[in-house]
């Protein structure tokens, strides 16, 4: 884990409200594992106060840089979206636990909802590294074609790829979870998912039914990012005991069986 001043070396708009940011940071580039995130301070001042968490989408060890795919939703992302390349940002990372590797058997299915594609691109890239011969299916769902951000990057690291949009503007029409059941039937060894909480809940439900291991990347509003403030918890249950676990430290990747989806349905999501 590092905390240091880095430079935004490139910022590219990759869709309406979507930006690909590249930061110069050899330490994070060398250390980051798929599923981990960075915690970015968007200002040198104290308002907005808190750092903003973003999944690492990829690293370039040779260049010493890493990328983040960002959707503009509020004040902090707006500031990042407007930053000139060359701007310095204070970054902590890599943080969180990262994805558990899949077991030796079966194909891997990656289920991405919107901006949730970012850590899955990183994961697929890693799974394909020399020695990795895993067959990877990517399912990428979003509201419309505009929101299928970086689908080329994603499809490029998958062996099979499906785009799904709610409005049918590109690919298949429907929800990404409508297209998961057939995959689960054909020898899938492990599912990885990242996207809106309700999508993850549905993925988890389907995987549980099909008895396929499933890992999800969770979100929660964050304070410290390192496990100290206990601000970022989600409800979990394991071995019959319910408790609150930290997204920043015990996650952001959770075994889908451990997450207390019912409690999450009752309203524990950030917004």
């Amino acid at each position: 884990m590092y905390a240091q001043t880095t430079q935004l070396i490139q910022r590219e708009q990759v869709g309406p409200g979507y930006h690909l940011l590249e930061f110069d940071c050899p330490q994070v580039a060398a250390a980051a594992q798929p599923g981990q995130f960075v915690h970015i301070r968007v200002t040198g001042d104290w308002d907005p106060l808190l750092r903003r968490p973003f999944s690492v989408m990829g690293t370039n060890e040779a260049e010493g840089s890493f990328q983040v795919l960002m959707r503009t939703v509020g004040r902090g992302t707006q500031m990042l979206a407007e930053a000139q390349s060359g701007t310095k940002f204070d970054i902590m990372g890599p943080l969180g636990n990262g994805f558990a590797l899949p077991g030796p058997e079966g194909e891997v299915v990656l289920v991405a909802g919107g901006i949730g594609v970012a850590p899955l691109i990183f994961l697929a890239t890693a799974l394909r590294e020399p020695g990795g011969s895993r067959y990877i299916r990517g399912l990428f769902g979003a509201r419309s074609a505009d929101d299928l951000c970086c689908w080329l990057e994603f499809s490029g690291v998958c062996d099979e790829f499906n785009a799904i949009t709610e409005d049918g503007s590109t690919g298949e029409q429907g929800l990404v979870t409508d297209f998961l059941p057939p995959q689960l039937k054909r020898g899938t060894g492990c599912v990885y998912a990242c996207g809106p909480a309700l999508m993850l809940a549905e993925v988890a439900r389907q995987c549980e039914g099909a008895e396929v291991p499933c890992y999800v990347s969770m979100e929660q509003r964050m304070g410290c990012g390192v496990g100290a403030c206990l601000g970022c918890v989600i409800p979990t249950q394991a071995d019959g005991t319910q408790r609150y676990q930290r997204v920043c430290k015990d996650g952001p990747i959770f075994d889908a069986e451990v997450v207390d989806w019912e409690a999450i349905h009752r309203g524990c999501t950030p917004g």
Partner: protein
Amino acid sequence: MAAPQVDLSVELAGLSLVNPVLVASGTFGYGTEYGELVDVGRLGGICTKAVTLQPRAGNPPPRICETPAGMLNAIGLQNPGVEVFIGEKMPALREFGVPIIVNVAGESVADYVSLAERLSDCADIAALELNLSCPNVKRGGMQFGIDGELTERVVAAVREATELPLIAKLSPNVTDIASIGEAARDGGADALSLINTLLAMSIDIDRRQPMLANVTGALSGPAIRPVAVRMVWEVAQAVDLPIIGMGGITSAADALQFIMAGATAVAVGTANFVEPGISGRIIDDLEDFCQQAGVACAADLIGAAHGSSDVEGLQ
């Protein structure tokens, strides 16, 4: 780096701190969370996350949200309980070699007494900080800190139960903070910590619901600093006990406001989340400030803004 001639050490409730910069309860976990990033051994001391008798699950999420130059939290005292604290957290805390001030919270006077007794048996605890001021739990917490009589009663009961230095942590959500400080003194506190957080709230207008599952939360960060400085100022005038000042400290300049208002030491809270190394920077900058101002001992600055004659106005 500054030359060594500035003496930053302060005495507080019988403790000798190498410098006046602590980290505030609940904002630095149990020390280890920041161990990789922060030279914890340089700190004047650590106030731990609140410990309760029994483990507590804490409040449901969302537990935090951002506000102008501040944040709300409603953690709800999630902690593993005093036994796990002693067994699993203290060993690592000890390793830092700095004074460990254990923040304790109870739902009743008896809880505080039991906690004090149990922690008195544990080696290397420098002091207890009685959290009389947590606004995020239904029972106990702030209920004590907003009532002078209860404050005196709980402090007195704990005073009987332990030899450890006692620091009473006061709630700012009161009409007259000085009188609560007096009550803590009368109960036998050796020092006072202030301020805890302001009771506050934000609403998500799209969902037409409170931002936090707990409805209300605790406001911290730079936004509350002027309130905190005022309260330290008032309590310093009324109560002859050393004060640990806190509330929105982000720099040595901020820390000096508290010291000049009458605090003997300061604690950095929310700012740790934003800049983990901030306490070290504040220690360095305090040293620089003293050097440039020709102040040999930082302790000479305690209360320095008092006694400056009031500017006289027109009728």
